[in-house]
């Protein structure tokens, strides 16, 4: 009978012994999913509560409603963190799924490239919208903007 020293066995599914040095990006991605997940529970539940439960619910949402929120630095930074945490979490999760199902190297490279570039474009677009937003655009219909805008003509 032969005996096996379990400490000599490779971990399940590891194709080779880990000898690489330096930072392990895959591990940090794994940690990011969990840390951002906890933060997102708070941010998303707060987002849904303020927009869909308080006040008149979904029927209250229009330009003036958004203007009221985004003219307050608190909501600007709230939406900023929501945007970055959620989109990076979602994109990293989609990366895992692409790696799971797409085995053709070229297709996978194309999909991962599309994923990363759409995330980059939307992060920049969303951030610009949050911080360059004008709640009282010149010449806007007074009936559509927030009451604090006064006369815009």
């Amino acid at each position, binding site marked *: 009978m032969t005996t096996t020293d379990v400490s000599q066995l490779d971990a399940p599914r590891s194709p080779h012994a880990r000898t690489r040095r330096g930072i392990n990006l895959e591990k940090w991605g794994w940690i990011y999913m969990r840390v951002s997940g906890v933060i997102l529970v708070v941010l998303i539940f707060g987002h849904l509560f303020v927009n869909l439960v308080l006040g008149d619910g*979904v*029927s*209250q949402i229009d330009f003036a409603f958004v203007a009221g929120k985004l003219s307050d630095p608190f909501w600007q930074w709230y939406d900023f963190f929501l945007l970055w945490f959620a989109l990076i979490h979602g994109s990293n999760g989609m990366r895992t799924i692409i790696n799971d199902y797409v085995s053709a190297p070229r297709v996978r490279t194309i999909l991962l490239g599309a994923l990363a570039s759409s995330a980059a474009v939307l992060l920049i677009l969303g951030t610009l919208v949050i911080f360059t937003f004008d709640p009282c655009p010149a010449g806007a219909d007074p009936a559509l903007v927030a009451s604090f805008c006064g006369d815009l003509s």
Partner: protein
Amino acid sequence: MPAKAMPATEGAAAADSSSATMTVPAPRPSVIPGGTLYRGNEGMWSWVLHRITGVAIYFFLLVHILDTALVRVSPEAYNAVIGAYKTPLMGIAELGLVAAVVFHAFNGLRIILVDFWGVGTRHQKAMFYIVIALSVVVMAAFTPRHLISVFGG
């Protein structure tokens, strides 16, 4: 004793047909389908649901960043597109979306507890049913509130 080498179901059948001479209790049938602890059980379904809800929320987030960016275009453009969210059909679809977010959020916390809580793995099944129960409670509270806003309020 040959019964030892027999598959559990055959052993049970043999014990039934010869109950006059054999008093040995039939071996318990295997509760492990397909030779895995994972397939077909709570662990698999929580993973399937987590993956499907994650993908659904991701694609909604892409659209949602773009529709919100319309506040930077004009009040008219934003109000026209956001009006689509207030129609009855979209109102119902939003219930599905919120349910997906709520499940993904609670099940994400369950995954984190399985990973970091000492006895998390042992309680993963119970925690899955807690996730389902919490999701049902949250949706029971949210559904009437949202439908009032969509259809009447």
